[in-house]
């Protein structure tokens, strides 16, 4: 592979323009819907905005435009719909924080009851609205196998309310409610939930994870999900420069590093069983992912906590073993 010039330096990803037309990203198509239109109020480098743009445009493409979106309260809702403006170029409904899944179930039921099954339903929310306050509604949607694709944009804390910890916040991360003080600074070990595996435990047709570093993979998973019926779940790792204390320009890099460190396994599961996992092509120690983020700053430096970094490395190693995603294992 030496001597080949790649467009994304250091990523080993082949640039979009080198691909055949049919394999190019939906975003490469000037005729795309632009479901989340420009002019919204997301922060610079917002991983959620990037992910949502790819997810919704891909879903619109997959359904030939026959798509309805339901949104939980959160950053995505707030930055996209400050009355009287809206960035959404598709039918879009926001009800409450906790009920996006149930509201989407209701939309799907209505479309079925009124003979409009050609219209598909996408629900989306952040990690707080998904793994915490919205979990009961989401679990209900899963167990009933309602015909909805639910997408969680995971930025690992309650960013819209000012960066408080959620059930998706990783250990040691500093948030406004897991301060970097005390014997165990940042978020405690032994807390948090693994939402994709919770989703898999419902034996729903499709569960997948993705990051904003692998956008072709993200789009492909949306297309796969939209080719199926029943309850489907997509969990997208979405960096938040504001909440993480990272550079806006680093969002994609951090999303790449989290996968390569093993801290965020990227995989697909069908009917409760893992069917594919993205191999780690150039493994990095967790430090490389942690160091550029101020939320982990207390782990480094003279008063750093190499012991906590080692425990995070153990979590990464466990993921790598669980999903068999190193090059050696494959």
């Amino acid at each position, binding site marked *: 592979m030496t001597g080949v010039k790649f467009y994304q330096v250091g990523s080993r990803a082949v640039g979009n323009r080198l691909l055949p037309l049919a394999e190019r990203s939906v975003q490469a198509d000037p005729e795309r819907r632009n479901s989340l239109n420009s002019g919204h109020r997301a922060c610079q480098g917002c991983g959620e905005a990037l992910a949502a743009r790819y997810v919704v445009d891909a879903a619109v493409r997959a359904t030939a435009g026959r798509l309805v979106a339901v949104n939980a309260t959160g950053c995505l809702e707030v930055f996209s719909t400050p009355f009287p403006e809206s960035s959404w*170029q598709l*039918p*879009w*409904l926001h*009800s409450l924080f906790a*009920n996006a899944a149930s*509201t989407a179930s209701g939309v799907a*039921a209505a479309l079925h009851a*009124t003979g409009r099954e050609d219209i598909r339903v996408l629900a989306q929310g952040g990690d707080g609205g998904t793994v915490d306050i919205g979990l009961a509604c989401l*679990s209900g949607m899963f167990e009933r196998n309602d015909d909805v694709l639910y997408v969680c944009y995971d930025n690992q804390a309650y960013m819209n309310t000012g960066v408080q910890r959620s059930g998706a916040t990783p250990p040691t991360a500093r948030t406004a409610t897991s301060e970097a003080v005390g014997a165990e600074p940042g978020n405690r070990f032994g807390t948090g939930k693994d939402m994709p595996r919770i989703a898999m435990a419902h034996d729903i047709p499709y569960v997948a994870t993705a990051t904003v570093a692998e956008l072709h993979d993200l789009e492909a998973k949306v297309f796969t999900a939209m080719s199926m019926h029943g309850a489907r779940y997509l969990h997208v790792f979405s960096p938040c420069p504001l909440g993480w204390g990272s550079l806006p320009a680093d969002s994609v890099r951090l999303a790449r590093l989290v996968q390569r460190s093993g801290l965020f396994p990227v995989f697909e599961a069908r009917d409760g069983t893992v069917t594919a996992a993205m191999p780690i092509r150039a493994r990095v120690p967790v430090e490389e992912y942690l160091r550029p983020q101020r939320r982990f700053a207390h782990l480094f430096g003279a008063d750093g906590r190499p012991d906590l970094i080692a425990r995070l490395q153990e979590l990464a190693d466990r993921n790598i073993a669980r999903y068999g995603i190193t090059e050696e294992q494959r």
Partner: protein
Amino acid sequence: MREQLEGSQAIARTVARCRPEVVPAYPITPQTHIVEALGKMAKAGELGRCQFVTVESEFAAMSAAIGASAAGARSYTATASQGLLYMAEALFNAAGLGLPVVMTVANRAIGAPINIWNDHSDAMSQRDCGWVQLYAADNQDAVDLHPLAFALAERISVPVMVCVDGFVLTHAFEPLELPSAADIEAVLPGYEPRQVLDPDEPVTIGAMVGPEAFTEVRFLADRQLRGADPAFAELARGYGERTGRLLAAVRPPVPAAHTVVVALGSVLGTLEEVASATDGAVGVLGLVMYRPFPADAVRAALRDADHVIVLERAFSPGASAPVTADVRAALAGTQARISTVVCGLGGRPVTRAALHDLLATADRGELGEVTFLDLNDDVVGRELYRQQQAPRTGPTAANLLRDVVPAGRGSVR
């Protein structure tokens, strides 16, 4: 044709004839018979393409109804008590989004102490959520109010709650006349939403509104809700002409010279009977519509009253009681004396004898500003004394029951 029917069955069969398209359901006593019956009909294919969705909570039930309604389906659910409170956030949301969801509330007390029996604490706690609230005095009302509720909701784009006393009505068998499908069709044509989630005409529903417009949004929502009063009158007139059963925001008052008792719900039957035996000394004003509050009709009906007694099946701890506050506002500037009588809490029967004694007390001029009907003064006095001697935190129910339940017949620790 009159049939001997349980209230819940009659409501379910009537709702079925209203052609709901999505019914999210979650069980809670004493509402459950209604959704059970609808679920059976849906499963048997008697409701066309209607989707009966067994959700995991009342919050999800109302949320699914919101989604279904926004997607253009006629949506219905039923709940009670804790379930109504569990969906509180979604109730405000449905109203704010202007979605014509219809819901039966089988009125039941709110805990703690947990209590499954009837009063109005649940619906009254949600009086400000922006829904129309209609109260059935009997099961025939309960039946007839449902087609009108759907028609009203869809006409003014506001959700409607039909409040039916739990057990007293939901589980009572009465000879009832169900409206025919044709009677209902006449008042309730197919649902044609004005704004719907549709890829051909994409709209954003549920945007964020800031200080620059929120007050105006609230003002207009109030106007919209107040439109329920004339709209209900018109719809009820049309329905009454076909069925011979005329409903109105307030029931035809039992006229009186001086004293009028205001009430809503199933206590009205007993009350009207007791009042009619006073030879015109005591009148009755029954409220069918509580939100929007029919202030003009109430004021007109109470024009000549010197003493207005409001029977409350709920109260506001630390203040007064909800209906009294509204009646007082409607009578502002008049000389009428207003008494609040809190009665029938947590299923305690409001008997003819108790109402008779109450009216006698009022007649003697001895009725105070706030009275708890049938309050066991001995028990309350002992507990107040005990608390004075040895104050402690925690529920009072256990202490009270030691006095109320004779030894050996059960104990609560």
